[in-house]
């Protein structure tokens, strides 16, 4: 059977496992079975069709709850493009997104109704959308016209660098991603996910998509639990969660506060981390606590739908080694390109030089919404061939092949600076600082006025100790002007360190 629409996964799974819980927040009352999810999404879709939303953009402003997933899938049923929002976003950001994507409607739940109505746009509540009967004829008509390169969602980048951009994802890319990811992580019907991410990023696609595909179950872990590591671990155990795909800093918080020494989340069989570097000492702490679990690191930009590379922890890492990002997912092409535009290849028994990663394949999104110039700057002709048009995505991320032939992420191209003729990777300094267990977080920024490198960090280490340690590892020209201790570093809504805020200090 040919899959060209993500909803086909839901339909197959709902026919096979109608009563199995698809999504839950762990509180019992808020669970949704596959059959209920299918029925709800079709009702939402029918009402949106009647409201003329086919081919338009529908913003979803709902709490992080199974119903929000039903609303997004409902928009897909209507042939609309969903744009997830969140009440915790600043109001100006919501305004900007609604304007920028030309949203035709806001779908909200009752508790976000006042906020949604304050934007002076057509608004419908989830309750109103689901109270109408299903209109089978309209839904079938929409489906008959849909092809796999049609847009499915627009997700706005966190805006940690510059103005937020709406990345337009399509069915084909999501299907390609889902097929590759489930096989790379060996996910199946027995997978029980504990989802950490907010719903307005590409990150939760990992859990949502594979749940629909495999008939797995996803628990949307309440946000507040991430402040309290032991109650969080108890939640994982109580719900039998066996798979987590979390931002690295969330794993670091749990281990840094000492929770793993008290109680290991022993139900976990698959631990996946990514989005930023996991300090090696915290990686070792998690592995020690869960010796039976399989660990993976993922890497990937939103522009290539989700994750593009995976490393499976199947060998021991040396003390000062960076955790690799491994190799591209199945059917994803990755080219490492040097400054002269030539491809870099792995070398036998030694590390390659550093290059920029370019991605190609069905995994690519359609580009930035209503931003032709930025799209053309990032989605470019394949630099290795000019025989026919072939769009590839220039990630702006630097990496090299280590002696094992695995890719290792170094940092952003714009995190690379030149000083006294030497090339400096800010990521390298951060990595070095985090070798010490008494440094929890580290982030380097460049003061644009003075060109000084400043290292911000958190942890129990003193500033002079951090500088002394860097002095041992790094060449002189690599040393930051100073290390500045903070009790914690600011983070973006997805939990990544907010370098933009730091660079303003």
């Amino acid at each position: 059977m040919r899959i060209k629409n993500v909803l086909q996964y839901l339909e197959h799974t709902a026919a096979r496992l109608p009563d199995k819980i698809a999504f839950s927040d762990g509180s019992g009352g808020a669970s949704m079975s596959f059959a209920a999810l299918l029925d709800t999404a079709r009702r939402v879709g029918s009402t949106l069709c009647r409201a003329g939303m086919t081919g338009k953009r529908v913003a979803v402003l709902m709490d992080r709850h199974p119903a929000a997933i039903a609303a997004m899938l409902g928009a897909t049923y209507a042939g609309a493009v969903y744009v997830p929002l969140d009440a915790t976003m600043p109001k100006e950001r919501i305004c900007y997104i609604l304007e920028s994507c030309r949203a035709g409607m806001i779908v909200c739940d009752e508790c976000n109704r006042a906020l949604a109505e304050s934007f002076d746009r057509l608004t419908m509540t989830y309750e109103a959308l689901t109270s109408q009967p299903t209109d089978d004829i309209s839904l079938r008509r929409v489906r008959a016209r849909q092809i796999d390169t049609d847009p499915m969602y627009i997700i706005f980048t966190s805006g940690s660098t510059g103005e937020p951009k709406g990345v337009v994802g399509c069915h084909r890319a999501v299907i390609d991603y889902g097929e590759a990811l489930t096989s790379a992580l060996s996910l199946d019907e027995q997978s029980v996910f504990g989802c950490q991410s907010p719903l307005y990023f590409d990150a939760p696609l990992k859990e949502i998509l594979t749940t629909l595909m495999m008939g797995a179950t996803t628990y949307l872990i309440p946000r507040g639990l991430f402040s309290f590591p032991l109650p969080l671990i108890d939640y994982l155990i109580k719900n039998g969660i066996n798979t987590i795909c979390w931002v690295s800093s969330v794993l670091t918080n749990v281990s840094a506060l000492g929770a793993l020494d008290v109680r290991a989340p022993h139900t976990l069989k698959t631990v996946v981390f990514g989005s930023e570097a996991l300090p090696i000492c915290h990686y070792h702490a998690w592995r020690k606590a869960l010796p039976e679990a399989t660990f993976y690191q993922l890497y990937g930009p939103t522009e290539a739908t989700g994750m593009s590379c995976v490393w499976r922890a199947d060998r021991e890492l040396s003390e000062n080694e960076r955790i690799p990002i491994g190799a591209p997912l199945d059917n994803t092409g990755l080219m490492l390109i040097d400054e002269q535009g030539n491809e870099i290849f792995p070398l036998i028994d030694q590390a390659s030089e550093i290059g920029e990663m370019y991605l190609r394949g069905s995994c690519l999104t359609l580009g930035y919404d209503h931003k032709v110039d930025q799209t053309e700057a990032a989605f470019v002709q394949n630099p290795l061939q000019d025989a026919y048009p072939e769009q590839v995505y220039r990630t702006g991320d630097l990496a090299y092949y280590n002696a094992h032939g695995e890719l290792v992420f170094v940092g952003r191209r714009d995190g690379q600076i030149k000083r006294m003729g030497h090339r400096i990777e800010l990521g390298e300094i951060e990595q070095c600082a985090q070798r010490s267990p008494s440094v929890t977080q580290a982030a380097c920024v460049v003061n644009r006025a003075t060109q000084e490198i400043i290292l911000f960090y958190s942890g129990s280490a003193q500033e002079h100790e951090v500088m002394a340690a860097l002095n041992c590892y790094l060449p002189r020209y690599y040393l930051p002007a100073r290390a500045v201790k903070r009790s914690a570093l600011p983070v973006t809504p997805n939990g990544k360190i907010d370098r933009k805020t730091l660079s303003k200090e």
Partner: protein
Amino acid sequence: MEQKIIEILEKMHPTVDIKHETALVDEGILDSLDIVTLVTELNAAFDVCIPAVEILPSNFNSVEALATMVKRLDDV
């Protein structure tokens, strides 16, 4: 001790009536970053080491609850 705790919290949330707030966690005023910050700062300010078993919502909801926890750890 209470005064010092109030100072730390006011620095984090200048617009909240810290002294009288009894649901710092339940009302969502303190997020996960705040909790990590608070643990680090309390450890440094009172020369204690707040263990994972004490990092629970009930110990972080008010200045009084925080002070009770720190005193208990200090006595050990």
